[in-house]
């Protein structure tokens, strides 16, 4: 029996709680997200769990619906990064030689851009909004997955059983994805969990700058921005989205750490 670390437990609990909140918000929120329900800046209370915002809307409902964006952006951008990253990384790792050089130097070039800068550039060119922001974050995640996949491929392809498979005429594609890929899945899972956290943070940053989710749809990053002017008089409004972002990012990072620990203790 493997020892399960406390990081893993806490991370899992946080992520599951959030996922629960997100699923519930699909069917139920205490109030509408874009509707005046009381005076502005009401402090947290029984009827308004996180208080109300600058336009008298329920912050808790908005935080709940905001979590949908978080998961959507996280999943889609990690998926984009994973699919293209694994594809490019496995080609580079398996083919080697000049193919490897070309692909990996391209990845290096992409890594040289700070993620948020690339995302800013992308949405400036293709337009504001959550769709473009997600695609940009996905593209930025590619090199990371490509590197992990490539190094895994280089290690595994020298194993005797790969030579064996080759000698009996198994096709290259089958060797790549059936015989090699499953062996490197665990570092990819760890990277995906961490990538999730990065994407969430970046989305919050973009929405904070007004480039991500467009009002009146709620977004944690935008809520932070809106709360900034009233931080001294109504700190609860800033705390709600701030805490949610912190906990989510923390949750996914701990989960990633936890998975890595489990996989290393063999």
């Amino acid at each position: 029996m493997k020892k399960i670390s406390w990081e893993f437990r806490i991370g899992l609990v946080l992520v599951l709680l959030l996922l629960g909140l997100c699923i519930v918000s699909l069917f139920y929120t205490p109030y509408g997200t874009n509707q005046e329900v009381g005076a502005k800046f009401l402090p947290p209370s029984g009827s308004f769990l996180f208080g109300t915002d600058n336009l008298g809307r329920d912050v808790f409902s908005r935080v709940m619906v905001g979590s949908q964006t978080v998961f959507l952006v996280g999943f889609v951008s990690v998926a984009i990064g994973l699919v293209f990253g694994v594809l490019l990384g496995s080609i580079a790792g398996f083919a080697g030689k000049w193919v490897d050089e070309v692909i990996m130097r391209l990845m290096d070039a992409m890594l040289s851009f700070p993620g948020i800068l690339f995302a800013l550039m992308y949405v400036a060119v293709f337009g504001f909004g959550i769709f473009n922001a997600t695609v940009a974050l996905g593209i930025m995640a590619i090199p990371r997955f490509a590197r992990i996949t490539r190094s895994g491929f280089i290690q595994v392809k020298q194993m005797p059983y790969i030579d064996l498979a080759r000698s009996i005429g198994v096709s290259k594609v089958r060797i790549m994805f059936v015989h090699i890929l499953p062996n490197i899945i665990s570092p990819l899972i760890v990277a995906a969990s961490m990538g999730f956290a990065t994407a969430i943070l970046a989305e919050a940053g973009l929405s904070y700058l007004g480039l991500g989710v467009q009002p009146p749809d709620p977004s944690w990053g935008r809520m932070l921005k809106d709360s900034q002017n009233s931080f001294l008089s109504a700190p609860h409004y800033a705390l709600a989205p701030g805490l949610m972002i912190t906990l989510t990012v923390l949750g996914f990072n701990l989960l990633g750490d936890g998975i890595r620990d489990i996989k290393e203790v063999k």
Partner: protein
Amino acid sequence: MKKRILVVGLLLAAFLIFGCTPQTPATSKDSLVVAVPQDPDFLDPHKAEAAGTKEIMYNVFEGLLKPSPDGKPVEAIASAYTVSDDGLQYTFTLREGVTFHNGKEVTPEDVIWSYSRIAGAGEDAQESGVMIVAALVGTKMEKVGENQVLFTLSEPKGDFLEAMTSAVLDSSLEEASHNVEPVGTGPYKFVSYNPTQSIKLTRFDEYWNKEKMGKVKDVEFRLFSDNATALSSLLAGEVDLLPRITMDQIDSLPDTFEVFEGPQNMIQILGLNHAFPAFSKQEVREAINYAIDKDALISRVADGKAAKLGSNMSPVMEFWYHDGLDDLYPHNVDKAKELLAAAGESDLSFTISVPSNYEFHVHTAEVLAEQLAKAGITVKIEQVEWGIWLERIYFGEEYEATVISFVGKLDPHPMMQRYMSTYPQNFLNYESPEYDRLMEEGLRATAAADRAVAYKAAQEVIAKDSGVIFLMDPSLMTAHKKNLKGYTLYPIYFQDVSTLYFE
């Protein structure tokens, strides 16, 4: 031992003196720090266009006339003027003893040179970047007698007197120096400009109007690109005056500060692009007007501190304001739905493009979307950068609807002309021959009362057409230290520091 104590004591004293002085210039009674949001675009008043520049530099420059707090141009460099009966000839008499900040007396030649410059008389006017003042184009200017200037207009122009508030500059200076070391005749003279840091002015002790001399000696306009930083500097005591504080920030001010509040002659609109098919139908525009609850909007985004508008004129401009238009479309969701159904637009949906740097407009758009949803109208909000707003919406006219506001002017014509079909930047594509005719009438009439009649009628036309959805004139709120007195509010963008004093 004693010596050592002395040395330590001196060191401490030195530390206290050197350590503290740079941080606390604001506490002495003879200097004032005002927080402003943006760097001036040009120091040369004939080139500057940004309202943020003018609000500072009106303290330095004067024209033959200058704006007064009630919005009328009053005599400044000119001591008196007469108008001929046909409204074509204006004779200005220069006040005696008005000097520039460099000590040179203002002559009729300076006036003619200055106003010719903004009339586009110089051959290189376009290249030099001078903003041409339309009311002066084609005007003949000549010196009469010793100290008079005669302006002969080609046709009567109602906004001519406002043009006379343009700065008079020293014609003997080199052209380029106006943008480096501006010299004017106002109550304060320019000292230095440190980009992204501050603009410093000091009192001009030879100002012609001894009654209206500046009270505080040194004034610094400190630049804060971020409103939240400006607020914390105010709270820390480094800044004495913070114009345009937001509602949310007021709640965090302690008792040692006061907030001055007043209408600022700003017109906030929901601009509907008439080129968008649905908005060419009057029923649709009326329906939107009925669906919007302006009172609720004002209470939510401005905490009730705004004047409701029904036309393109704020109640502050009493003389020109058409009463009662703000109640033309009382909030009525059912009526809105009926009108939409009648127009065959029951499931109307459109996008409001709003400049993202103006949070106030973004919040307004959010509330509007919520209110319109109740009448079955689907509204999407798209935030755009200010540069893109100008390029795509203002100049490109590629949009469906937008929330924006226009700052006030002294004369109704420059404020209202943007809705004329002949206006070069009629970005709303509103076209009404009746409105155009009345505006033209207002411009050509010479008696102020006749002009008012025409402009009021024009307001009624555009309001009844629902040509534009007029929202509100949000109050200007200025926070200042309690012991700072004498703040004067103008219906234009202007922070008059000459009336301010510490108690």
